[in-house]
């Protein structure tokens, strides 16, 4: 096997384009993924037009004014605003691509909000214009704007509720309000009730006013109870639900680390399968298989050599890639020996699958194409969250993920990189089992080469 390995390395050395691709591909992928994961999300450029005249962005609620124009700055937290001065300019910016979208705040929005909060009638509407050319960018801009508008809407609602609750408290307990620059003291329902009860006790026993004032006191008490109950209810509307998260398992993988792991395993799979399938098919294409199999090398030794060559090269490239990614994403270097074990075993399992393909395809080009075409669905199926589908489809996806090495390789590498549950033992055992099964299949497939 040693001399075959030497020979294959000599052949690879004479194929500088292929070697450059094998070396450059994981490094470039590592850098791209690293930058993508470590960079903050971008802000879409959005043309922003407010038609509300300066100084008129206020609504009046009870005793207070709320400046709704001040909430526009909250919108700018998720977008890069391009201030425009007319609807035509906003639409032109979107059409030209200078802006991904436009947000137009109409002049009557303060009145609409005012009407809504005071009489329950009104439809405050913000207009969003989206560019329809690129569906991905359109969705990105739309989600950014809508998420931020929902936050602004919630902030305005909270402010309105705060004012309403404060006014109710003053009706209940009394206080001072400002009106036309003058301060006025409000008595409040509670004080009124107390005063009335005091007045009743001062009246003659048979005074007809006792009954009338008693009914007023009863109404006041009922109002106190009702409003006392209404205040906390109104206050709770602004934040009706609080979510408390509890993680049952121990350590979990950060999303960035998981994404990095996927990219490492995908690269490992692609490089291993292409190399194993291609190098075995090359023996057929060069007509050397029959000569080797004539007693010089056993078919099993030849297959093992291809698996070791492809798996070893790809695992080394994957280690370089993981090292590169660790500059951007947190990977646990203290577990490096487990990185090596997980990637090496994954390389062997993918290599065994690769030699099955090489044995079946027989020609380098066909083998490479088949390996590439098989890699993509294997990865995609393993990445579909099976809890998102049901019934038969779930069983099919689970089975496909089980019989190919991508899922166990991902689990093993995930544990090796970040020490997360489940443990590394089962995925490694699974990979070893798949390597044996694919090795046996390759042994049968390689008969076709002769």
């Amino acid at each position: 096997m040693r001399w075959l390995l030497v020979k294959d390395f000599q052949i690879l050395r004479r194929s500088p384009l292929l070697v450059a691709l094998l070396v450059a591909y994981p490094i470039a992928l590592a850098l791209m993924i690293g930058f993508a994961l470590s960079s903050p999300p971008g802000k879409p450029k959005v043309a922003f037009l407010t038609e509300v005249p300066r100084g008129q962005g206020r609504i009046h609620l009870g005793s207070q004014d709320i400046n709704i124009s001040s909430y526009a700055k909250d919108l700018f937290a998720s977008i890069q605003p391009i201030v425009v001065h007319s609807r035509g300019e906003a639409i032109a910016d979107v059409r030209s691509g200078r802006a991904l979208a436009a947000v137009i705040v109409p002049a009557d929005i303060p009145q609409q909000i005012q009407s809504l909060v005071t009489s329950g009638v009104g439809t405050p509407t913000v207009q969003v214009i989206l560019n329809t050319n690129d569906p991905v960018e359109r969705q990105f801009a739309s989600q950014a704007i809508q998420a931020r508008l929902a936050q602004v809407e919630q902030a305005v609602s909270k402010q309105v509720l705060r004012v309403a609750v404060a006014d109710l408290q003053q009706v209940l307990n009394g206080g001072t309000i400002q009106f036309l620059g003058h301060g006025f003291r409000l008595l409040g329902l509670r004080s009124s009730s107390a005063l009335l009860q005091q007045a009743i006790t001062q009246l003659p026993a048979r005074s007809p006013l006792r009954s009338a004032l008693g009914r007023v006191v009863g109404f006041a008490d009922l109002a106190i109870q009702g409003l006392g109950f209404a205040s906390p209810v109104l206050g709770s509307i602004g934040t009706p639900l609080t979510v408390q998260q509890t993680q049952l398992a121990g350590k979990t993988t950060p999303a960035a680390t998981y994404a990095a792991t996927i990219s490492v395993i995908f690269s490992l799979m692609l490089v291993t399968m292409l190399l194993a399938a291609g190098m075995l098919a090359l023996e057929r294409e060069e007509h050397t298989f029959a000569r080797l199999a004539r007693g010089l090398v056993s078919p099993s030794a030849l297959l093992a050599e291809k698996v070791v060559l492809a798996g070893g090269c790809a695992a080394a490239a994957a280690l370089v890639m993981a090292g590169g990614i660790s500059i951007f994403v947190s990977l646990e270097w203290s577990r490096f020996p487990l990185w090596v074990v997980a990637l090496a075993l994954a390389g062997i399992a993918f290599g065994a699958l690769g030699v099955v393909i090489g044995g079946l395809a027989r020609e380098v080009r066909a083998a490479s194409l088949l390996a590439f075409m098989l890699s993509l669905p294997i990865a995609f199926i393993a990445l579909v969250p099976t809890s998102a589908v049901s019934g038969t489809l779930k069983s099919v996806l689970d089975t496909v993920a089980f019989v190919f090495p991508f899922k166990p390789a991902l689990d093993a590498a995930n544990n090796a990189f970040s020490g997360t549950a489940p443990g590394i033992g089962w995925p490694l055992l699974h990979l070893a089992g798949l390597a044996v099964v694919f090795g046996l299949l390759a042994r049968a497939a390689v008969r076709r080469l002769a």
Partner: protein
Amino acid sequence: MPATAATRPATLAARSVTKRFGDRTALSAVSFEMYSGELVAVIGPNGAGKTTLLSILAGIQTPSGGEVSTGAGKVGWVPQQPAIYSKLSVTENLRLFARLEKVRDPDAAVEKMLELTELRDRAGDEVGSLSGGNQQRVNVAVGLLCEPAALLLDEPSASLDPRQRERLWKFIGGLGGRGTTVAYSTHDVLEAERYADRVLVLADGELLFVGTPAELERAVGGSPRDFEVAFVRFLDEHGH
């Protein structure tokens, strides 16, 4: 040479060798012997079983029946298309196969083959850059690395131009002169007549004739113009 053949032990012998692929019989009870220094051509129409016979003699395929016995020496195998690595140089190919053949001194064996094939000046060139004739010489040299007592060549001159053929046959003739038994299959019956000591005529898996080219010409009636005509008439007379 055939006159002395009976007195020498056979380098390679087939006894009732049969090969079936499913219902089809590719070889039917083929028996013959080959002797040291002898050049034997296996000829016959397409599908006669020439490549199957050589593959069985080389150990690449196993017979369905019968047996193949070899003398004390090894058997070298040269497939029809060069079975060498086009990205490796001539020297690297020879050294690799010498190591795989477990030759005691691989470097000496490489030197010897470079000398024999007269490819010393191309030793460092990638095989893929050589002409078809030179590639075939490397292909033959790889078959000779184990210093075989018998060398089997499957249509060695196919796809070569006349000049390259001439050089190849000179090279193969030299092997016979050094005592190596050489058996080759060919479509070109004139090559068989010119270079072979004996011919084996196969048709539909049956061995129809074993003897010298002159004996084949005598075996057909009348006076054929040349060996090719005699060969075709022989096949006709035997219902092929």
